[in-house]
């Protein structure tokens, strides 16, 4: 039974791409180049051909450096922006084309926690109002007492005293606010939670608290997480699976244990070697040369080739496809495919 549950695919991203237009309207597209006026439309390719599966009960962590499209993936899944190409399936139903009222049942099942707890709560609403609003909205049949009970319960479950309900968000600390934001997401009893760097704006001493709270909620409510982060130690603690994103493409996608014990993609190796370790006096970092390329003009071939020490002519000509390895991890790299990396 348990095996069945964990094999159930809750969320599936299929060749998901999102690009943002830089030039809006016809006049913006006109450029003056080499003495001629040309019409050119530029766009930022934030997410390219991302395919991921999240099983029920999993916590999929998406990692990568700033600007690699992690948050865009989260916003696409939450339906805050719509994909340029590809599809999102939730529990077998395609959700990326849904609009308005059709989305409402989905909103109850899927919630999101945001990065900045100082901005994610409406400053003009008391905690009580902020928590009551979603309960009333999704359960119009609830009586006043039902709503009160629900709010008090949720507040207790995140460790916020229900007697503080009349206060405004600015009267709380960052950690308390993030717990209130989590409470707000939990008021509608979701089964799937998207967390977009929920602890990166918090003090280190508070990070563990909030993380443990999210783990507790996972155990108690059987939540499934899509967890966006750039902190690899958090991934190790929290994730069951990891997807490494570089320039909007998935480089490597594996179980957490597999990824940390046996990273395959050169980028994953570089990332893992950058994690500071107490035991190591003279760390042997893999130093990446250069900068992350601009997502406006994507390089032809592998997105990582410009910084990869294993790159060869094939890498700059041909886009690597994701290939499943013997240990179940999925890697998109020509060098791994050809066995050029030990």
């Amino acid at each position, binding site marked *: 039974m348990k095996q069945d549950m964990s094999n159930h695919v809750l969320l599936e991203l299929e060749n998901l791409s999102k690009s943002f237009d830089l030039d809006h309207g016809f006049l913006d597209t006109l450029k003056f180049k080499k003495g001629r006026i040309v019409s050119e439309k530029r766009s930022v390719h934030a997410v390219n051909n991302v395919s991921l599966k999240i099983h029920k009960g999993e916590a999929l962590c998406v990692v990568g450096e700033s600007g690699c499209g992690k948050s865009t993936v989260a*916003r696409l899944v*939450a*339906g*805050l922006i719509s994909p340029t190409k590809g599809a999102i399936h939730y529990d077998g139903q395609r959700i990326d084309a849904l609009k308005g009222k059709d*989305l*409402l049942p989905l*909103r*109850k099942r*899927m*919630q*999101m926690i*945001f*990065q*900045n707890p100082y*901005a*994610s*709560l*409406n*400053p*003009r*609403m008391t905690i009580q109002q902020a928590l009551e*609003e*979603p309960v009333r*909205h*999704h359960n119009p049949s609830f009586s006043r007492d039902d709503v009160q009970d629900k709010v008090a319960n949720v507040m207790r479950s995140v460790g916020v005293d229900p007697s503080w309900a*009349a206060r405004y968000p600015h009267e709380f600390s960052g950690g308390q606010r993030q717990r209130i*934001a989590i409470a*707000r997401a939990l008021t*509608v009893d979701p089964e799937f939670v998207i967390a977009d760097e929920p602890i990166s704006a918090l003090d280190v001493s508070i990070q563990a608290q909030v993380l443990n709270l999210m783990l507790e909620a996972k155990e108690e409510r059987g939540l499934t997480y899509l967890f966006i982060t750039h902190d690899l130690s958090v991934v190790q603690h929290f994730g069951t699976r990891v997807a490494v994103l570089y320039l909007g493409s998935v480089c490597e996608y594996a179980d957490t244990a597999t990824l940390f014990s046996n990273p395959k993609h050169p980028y994953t190796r570089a990332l893992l070697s950058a994690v500071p370790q107490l035991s190591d006096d003279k760390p042997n970092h893999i130093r990446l040369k250069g900068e992350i390329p601009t997502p406006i003009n994507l390089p032809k071939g592998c997105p990582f080739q410009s910084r990869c020490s294993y790159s060869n002519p094939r890498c700059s000509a041909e886009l690597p496809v994701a290939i499943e390895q013997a240990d179940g991890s999925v890697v998109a790299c020509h060098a791994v495919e050809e066995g050029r990396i030990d």
Partner: protein
Amino acid sequence: MSMMSDHQSNSLFSRIMDSNITYSFKRNPVAIISMVIFLLIAFAAAFAPLIAPTDPYDPSLYDILDSELPPAWTGQGDEKFLFGTDDQGRDLWSAILYGTRTSLIIGICAVLVQAFLGISIGLISGYLGGRIDNILMRFADIQLSFSTLMVAIIFLAVSQALFGSDTFNKYALFMLVGVIGIAEWPQYARTVRATVLAEKKKEYVDSARVLGFSPVRIMIRHILPNSLSPIFVISTVQVANAIVSEASLSFLGLGMPVSQPSLGSLISSGFDYIFSGSWWITTIPGIVLVVLVLVINLLGDWMRDVLNPKLYKG
């Protein structure tokens, strides 16, 4: 339950008293004096029928033989008429009280119309964006390219000619409110749109969207309460502007009729006699108008300083 609401109202009052706005108000003598004068004028205007010695709207109460009496303190005047009388023998003090009331009503109602139109259009345009935003903002640009007075003069002159003077005079108040209200909505719409654009990028709006709230609810319950400070500031300035517009239109004979004078029509009616020595008919309502507009503008200035996030960190 009542305990809780008690506690809330208590804390609301103390929150107002402890707030930065109250603090800055107490420390600003200009704001205090302006507020006192404004409240005095507003009070006098609101209770004009109780304060005024006669009813200036009732022609049977005044005598043509009392016309153009100078103010009581000049010596030649009559003690019955504190500020003297106008060309029809009407008590100027009563006329000013009633006129201030009319001016304030028109100013405030016109601003309510402006605010309603401007806030709804600004919210829609800022939140929805795209083509709707473009169309609405081009309308605002077109509207702004005509001066308010020009639009009002054309509209009022045409409707005066169309309906005849009698009907026009009957509905002059509503016409003025409507015309001044409609002519100035772009001021609001642009300010509100700008704040909405800044607010809608914040995560609490995303969070409300993920929770599945409707766009109308997000606009009214979430974005609007967070865009109130600039709305307050322009409202004060706009009330002063609307009063001035009303006075100008009445002065030009397109506003309130002489039988139901506003400050503008009082000034206008005295203007014909100013060179024959009857300076008080124009000057005294003029001073009241200037003081009223000045204190409202000073209050608006103070409010802008307090609510401007760049000068003030809260």
